[in-house]
């Protein structure tokens, strides 16, 4: 057998067995190297998976002092919820704003008429007193029956009627201006109510900042931990892969040595 190998391979059987062993070692080293890569990939994937999990967003909730809540969901969605009192307040404000805007959007004619009637109601008694006083004065002067082409009645009657008519005109203009002012005021109030309706939400958003800061810090710590975990795990993997690589290298070197011993003696 030894001859055979010698005849055949030029080496003896011992040498052939040593060569086979060296080849086996080299193959084992080769296979180990392949396994080490596979294992490193698997460990890397596992590490990545674990780090993804570790670095993943964690839902959190911010609750304000007035009972409002900000909830950040796991998918990144967030929900804000006002407290019942705030919701009631908001509804009240929105309702008021709606009413004010509705009133502001209405034509001013009816309001003008209403204001004018109220102004006339305050003016009419004095006008009636003036009319009666003039009537008495004219009666005392025997002039109740005066009719003139120039003035209609007596000049004083004309003057009084003119003054009263001018007062009516002023009242009408005043009513128009007042109605328009009220319209602007309704719009402004609507704006104010509308703004006030958003105050709970704004206040909750304001209150959200500190909560978000805390969450961010927590996230940052989480991410840092994840990094450390990754780095440590990666170091372990590196060490593991290094040792496996060393083993494979050792096997390879052993196989190489054997081969060199076998073929280097001649």
């Amino acid at each position, binding site marked *: 057998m030894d001859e055979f190998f010698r005849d055949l391979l030029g080496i003896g059987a011992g040498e052939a067995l040593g060569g086979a062993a060296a080849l086996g070692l080299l193959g084992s080293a080769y296979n180990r190297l392949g396994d080490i890569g596979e294992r490193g990939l698997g460990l890397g994937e596992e590490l990545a998976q674990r780090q993804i999990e570790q670095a993943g967003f964690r839902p959190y909730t911010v609750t304000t002092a007035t009972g409002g809540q900000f909830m950040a969901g796991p998918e990144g969605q967030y929900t804000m919820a006002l407290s019942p009192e705030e919701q009631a307040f908001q509804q009240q404000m929105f309702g008021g704003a709606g009413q004010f805007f509705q009133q502001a959007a209405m034509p001013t004619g009816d309001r003008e008429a209403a204001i004018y009637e109220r102004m006339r109601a305050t003016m009419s008694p004095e006008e009636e007193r003036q009319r009666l006083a003039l009537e008495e004065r004219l*009666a005392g002067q025997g002039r109740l*029956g005066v009719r*003139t*082409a120039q003035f209609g009645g007596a*000049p004083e009657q004309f003057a009084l009627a003119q003054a009263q008519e001018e007062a009516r005109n002023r009242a009408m203009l005043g009513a128009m201006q007042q109605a328009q002012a009220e319209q602007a005021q309704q719009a402004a109030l609507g704006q104010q109510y509308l703004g006030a309706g958003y105050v709970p939400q704004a206040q909750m958003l304001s209150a959200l900042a500190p909560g978000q800061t805390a969450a961010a810090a927590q996230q940052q710590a989480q991410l840092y931990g994840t990094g450390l975990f990754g780095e440590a795990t990666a170091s372990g993997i590196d060490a593991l892969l290094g040792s496996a690589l060393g083993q494979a290298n050792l096997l390879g070197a052993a196989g190489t040595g054997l081969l060199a011993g076998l073929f280097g003696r001649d």
Partner: protein
Amino acid sequence: MAQQLSTINLVAPAFKGVNTEDSPIAQDPSFAEIADNAIIDKRGRIASRKGYSVLTTDRSELLNTTPNPDVYEPVRAIAEFRDSGGNTEIFSVGNNKILSGTTTLVDETPSGYSITADNWKIVNFNDRIYMFQRGYEPLVYDNTSGAVEAMSDHTHSNGVVSTMYGNEVLAAYGRLWTADFTTDKSTIYWSDLLNGLHWSGGTSGSIDISKVWPDGYDEIVALAAHNGLLIIFGQHSIVVYQGAETPASMTLADTVAGVGCVDRDTIQHTGTDVLFLSHTGLRSFGRTIQEKSMPISTLSKTITKDLISLIQDENSFYRTVYSPEENFYLLTFVGQSTTYCFDLRGALEDGSLRVTRWPSSVFSAYERLQNGKLYIGSDQGISEYKGYQDNGESFRFKYYSPSLTFGDASKLKFIKKIKPTIIGASGEVASIKFAYDFDKTYRSVAFNVPSAGAGAEFNVAKFNIDEYSGTTQQVVRKALNATGSGSTVVVGLEADIDGNALSLQEINILALVGKTV
């Protein structure tokens, strides 16, 4: 032994005019029981009035055909149109026509304008003459158109509507004023300033005084203007407005209750006052305002009951005139043919005016012309107050004294002689009348007044002054025997005035006073 004759000397008899109010035997002999067709002349004597001289020669337009055929209707109003261009025209109304002219009366009635009454009031205003009568559209005449036309037909008229067809019209304070309408008795309309044709627009207007009457209700009868006042005469009250220059703002100044005006045509301006006939006699506006409605303020207290009776019986027209030349205010009751002549030279102690009576007066219209002539309307047409004949005829002058007692009504008086002193006259037959004890059957002693000139008794004008221009005034003194006796005596003088003035200077009565009866 012969008894001494007592003398009563009636100096300037009837100097105080007629007095029918006081008791005849208690009267001042200066009054007269009757003073017919007389005036108080400038020397304070009772004298004959002037007559009227008819100017109209063609009065055919006054001839009525229906309903009184062949009757000449009297002229009911006369007015002289004058404008700033010096144009004049005499207008008159009568027989339901508007007439012009004096010698020949020409019908000026607008074509198609129907008239059934002649109670027009005619006023001059700003170069036009306006004629108003209740229920009739006012008529207007100016020299430009040269014709009388209905106011609405005038090219410049405006606002002429039936509501202002008034019976009274007044031209004063730069406007025409009208009142007394067919149904509206309390409203006064005034025209635009200086334009009697404009009754709408401008400063025209009206005033209803139905709430102003002091007694609650009255009806406007007449309007007058005096001292910036608009005087509104009602039937029983007077309302006075001040500031009538601007009627829109004029104010009530005064009211008088219980005194009104009988008729629009009794109002006359004397320059310093306004005279009007109330239901209780002739009144002065000035005194009425001062004394309010006190009845003692009448100017006709000596004939109050006579006037009231005439007023109550009058069913036709009142016509009056004020003549500063003659110094009288004539008041004619046309329906009763009676005229009273109020002398305006002075007043009696109680403020009443001296008054005489012109009976059987045919005067139916008066107009004092710008030149002072006094035109008279009658059924003869238009006449002038002048001369001493009534259209060529004589008229009867009468004077009767009140009952004279010679100081003692209880004793018999035997009138022996009556010595009248007459100024003027010429050739007339005069009669001294006397009666005793209120007997109305007078004894009469006629005498002839010598013709003036050679036949005059003295042929010397008194105080060498001709009292009436163009006529020599003679003084006639007569001593006439009288008979009879009685406790009171009325003495009178009657004369037919036939061309000459007559004044009664005095009557001297010689009487024998007898026993007590």
